[in-house]
């Protein structure tokens, strides 16, 4: 035992879950994550419990997996790291480049002074979990020091001298018996949809709303930080869309959006909520009563809006066609939430080249051959509980493979 090594690429829900399962079986795991914070998209998701009752969104499970992974003696984590290339000669040999972490995790106490003192918005990033350590990271794309060396405030003021702006990137070589690709998904970018995302401040995505609720517990209009009186959710943005050739349902958006809508109704009861949809998908075992309650508080409109305009007072005018009358109708709201779909992540291209495996017709990646495996939403849309189950099953397959119990066809 203990002499087998697995390289897990991606530190989101899938990568963390699979890593923990393998590590529990005594397998050594090298986990690399592209971003500076582990946990993937889902670590930014809010708990959606209402009436003191869990609604089974699974967000807290990601927190739990992250905690298990970072403290596991069999898991070694490299954040801000990417695979440069991999060769396979019986075992895998991977060259990894780790971007400079700038903030020394050994010294940082998460006091937050760097963020408070930084003059450049967005140059110091904040984590989402207490297990994101350090809780802060320097964004070299925004940091003035990396632009023109004009600012060293964070370094100078850090009471722990934890910040080294000149720290260099490092190279690592990892030998592994199997590789797991768990690079997750790309939230659909709605900027090309006629909904004004990126142009109108008060049009946000479902993921933006998740993070807003996790961060501040309330939903506010980005334009003026005030509470919105009226919110519209628009479903299936980038999913079930033949024009985009996205012939899949993203599975998770109905659950996420309706649960958040009910959470908002509980915390900000005066908010009116309209919900534009095609078909409401079943989520969770208690879907039927949950949906019945939701319909009492939330105005369900079975239509997908054509476009959205910003009015002079920054309110948003949504145009849609009423199904039964065929009339064009309008809905005026303060905030629009676009339930953006799960789409294949760009890095699937890189992985396809490195491992010589092609994506499926939708562009997602699925394999369990020759020591290369995929888990989680890189395979296609999955909820958090589904991702955890999928990752457990893949961990089992990897274990059988490295123990020589798999017959490859």
């Amino acid at each position: 035992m203990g002499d087998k090594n697995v390289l897990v690429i991606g530190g989101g829900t899938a990568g963390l879950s699979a890593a923990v399962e393998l590590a529990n079986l005594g397998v050594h795991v090298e986990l690399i994550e592209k971003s500076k914070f582990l946990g993937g998209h889902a670590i930014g998701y809010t708990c959606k419990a209402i009436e003191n009752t869990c609604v089974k969104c699974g967000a807290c499970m990601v927190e739990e997996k992250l905690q298990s992974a970072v403290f596991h003696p069999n898991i070694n984590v490299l954040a801000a790291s990417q695979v440069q290339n991999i060769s396979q000669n019986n075992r895998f040999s991977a060259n990894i480049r780790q971007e400079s972490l700038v903030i020394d995790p050994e010294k940082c106490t998460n006091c937050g002074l760097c963020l408070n003192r930084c003059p450049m918005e967005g140059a110091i990033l904040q984590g989402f979990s207490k297990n994101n350590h350090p809780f802060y990271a320097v964004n070299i794309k925004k940091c003035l020091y990396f632009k023109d060396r004009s600012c060293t405030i964070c370094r100078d003021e850090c009471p722990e001298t934890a910040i080294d702006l000149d720290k260099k990137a490092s190279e690592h070589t990892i030998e592994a018996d199997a590789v797991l690709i768990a690079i997750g998904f790309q939230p659909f970018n709605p900027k090309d949809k006629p909904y004004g995302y990126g142009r109108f401040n008060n049009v946000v995505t479902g993921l933006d709303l998740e993070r807003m609720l996790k961060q501040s517990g309330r939903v506010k209009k980005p334009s003026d930080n005030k509470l919105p009186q009226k919110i519209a959710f628009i479903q299936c943005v980038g999913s079930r869309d033949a024009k985009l050739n996205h012939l899949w349902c993203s599975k998770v958006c109905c659950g996420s959006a309706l649960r958040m809508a009910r959470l908002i109704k509980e915390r900000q009861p005066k908010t009116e909520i309209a919900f534009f949809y095609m078909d409401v998908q079943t989520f969770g075992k208690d879907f039927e009563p949950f949906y019945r309650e939701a319909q009492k508080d939330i105005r369900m409109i079975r239509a997908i809006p054509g476009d959205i305009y910003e009015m002079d007072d920054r309110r948003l005018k949504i145009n849609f066609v009423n199904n039964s009358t065929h009339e064009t109708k309008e809905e005026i709201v303060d905030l629009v939430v676009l339930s953006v779909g799960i789409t294949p992540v760009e890095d699937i291209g890189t992985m396809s080249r490195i491992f010589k495996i092609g994506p499926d017709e939708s562009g997602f990646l699925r394999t369990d051959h020759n020591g290369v495996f995929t888990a989680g939403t890189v395979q296609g849309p999955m909820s958090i509980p589904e991702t955890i189950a999928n990752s457990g099953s893949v961990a089992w397959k990897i274990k059988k493979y490295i123990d020589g119990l798999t017959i490859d066809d």
Partner: protein
Amino acid sequence: MKKQTLILGNGPCAVAVAENLLTVGSKIIIATKDDVGGFIGYADSEDLQILTETRLVSCQGSVGNFRIEATQNNKSVTIDAGRIIIAEEDQRTSNFSRYGLKASSNVIPLSRMKILLNDTSPEESVLSEIKKVIFLTGIVKESTPVIANEVMESSLLLQKEFNIQTYILTKNLKVAGDGLESLYRETKNAGTIYIKFTDSLPGIYQEEDTIRIEFVDEITSRNFRLTPDMTVVDETIVASPYLTDLTKIFHIEADADGFVQADNVHRYPVLTNRKGIMVTGPSRGILTDDDQRIDAENAALAVTGLAEEEMETKLEKAEIHSEKCIQCLNCYHLCPHHAITLNERVEVEPDACEGCGICTANCLGGAIRIKNLNLQAILHQIKTGDVAQAEQTFTPLLVAFCCSRSAVQARELALCMGHELPLGLKVIQVPCAGAISYDHIFAVLKNGADGIMLLTCHKGNCHSERGNIFAGQVVKLIKGIFSIIGFEKERLSIQTLASNMGTEFSWITNRFEKTIAALGPSRLMKNQWPENQRRPNMKGNTG
């Protein structure tokens, strides 16, 4: 020495579990209440034994050492197993009554249609006479992707192989499954007509052999009347009634629909409230074939994983001091993990105990101890003098009993996020709020707390199933006592949190501080303090 694993069931999921375990050399025994089913062709060997027509009766012991009594053709058999995996098949009920229909030769359930379509000779099939088929699905009650998949696949075959015009009448088409949106497009291209209802419902009339369906189409606003040659009614997937027996035999939780496994995210995918008992596929919910295979692998993983860690654990376990035990059996009835056994004495099975402490809080004899719940150790953490008092303002001493898995984590996140927490907040970590007894609360009050909070997990998210509910009951009763004796009941509060709720942790604790500051110092303390050390009683001043 690793014991064999018992698998219950004879369907595809049970077979998948068995296959996975056999691959890694585990010894298995299969017990099915029916015939061999999917295990046809499997022969008994050193690693495999199959017991057919075998129903379980009782189960003693705990993880690693289960002893199961069963009956096989009226004879009793005993099975020893280290782990148990439940993989019983689900069942189906036809939804005729939902649509006001009665089964007849031209009104059939979905399963029957699937059989007709599998008929080897399409020319001789009863379907060869038919021109128009209607599927009714998810109209009165919501459906699932598993059923939607079967409806759409059947419809596609009817269109393509039999040249039959199909209609699918539904409310919300459930396409949240792999490939279902593509399948939906394919059926539409093949000619299936979808009629979706939002607020209205179709009128369905059955007269002798004819079915008439009348509705206003929501897209065209026109009245329609359909008279199909055959009407296919969808089905509801329900739990096997045998699972009700198994939940009693094993003392495991079930969901509202009778599937084994409480609807609790911490049990996903295959765990139950009892260590060493796993539940897969059609025994835990409505799952696709792919998801059932995934479950089988997770169950195999859980069996192997448990074997690896074999009884090694750092948890504090409950200990019963038998000289104090008055055999009230509260521990036996309340333990969420069924880790208390009744032999000559009441005993804790250390391997099954998860250290939640619910037994200690409810032990009438005070006979159960868990080290980290020791009252003296807890009181040691609370000293009134710890809270620095400013000259003019009152800073209340707030004691928060926090669940280690939720509120403790939430507090750490709150601190990371830079939220300010009350100055006088003392956090006492407990394994589960269900471990908090009257003794804890009164002792802490007596020790100087101005306010006490129990910060526990949301309902349905408790690792100990109902620890949070028990905590709520304790709080309710003590508040009742407070009302009787005229003590402010606002000084005791219970709130729920999840591990990722840092912001909410700061809201809850700061709001509580405000409440308590407005009440002023606890009266219990006034007389115990020497005059010169007495804290300023600034009633109404929140500092």
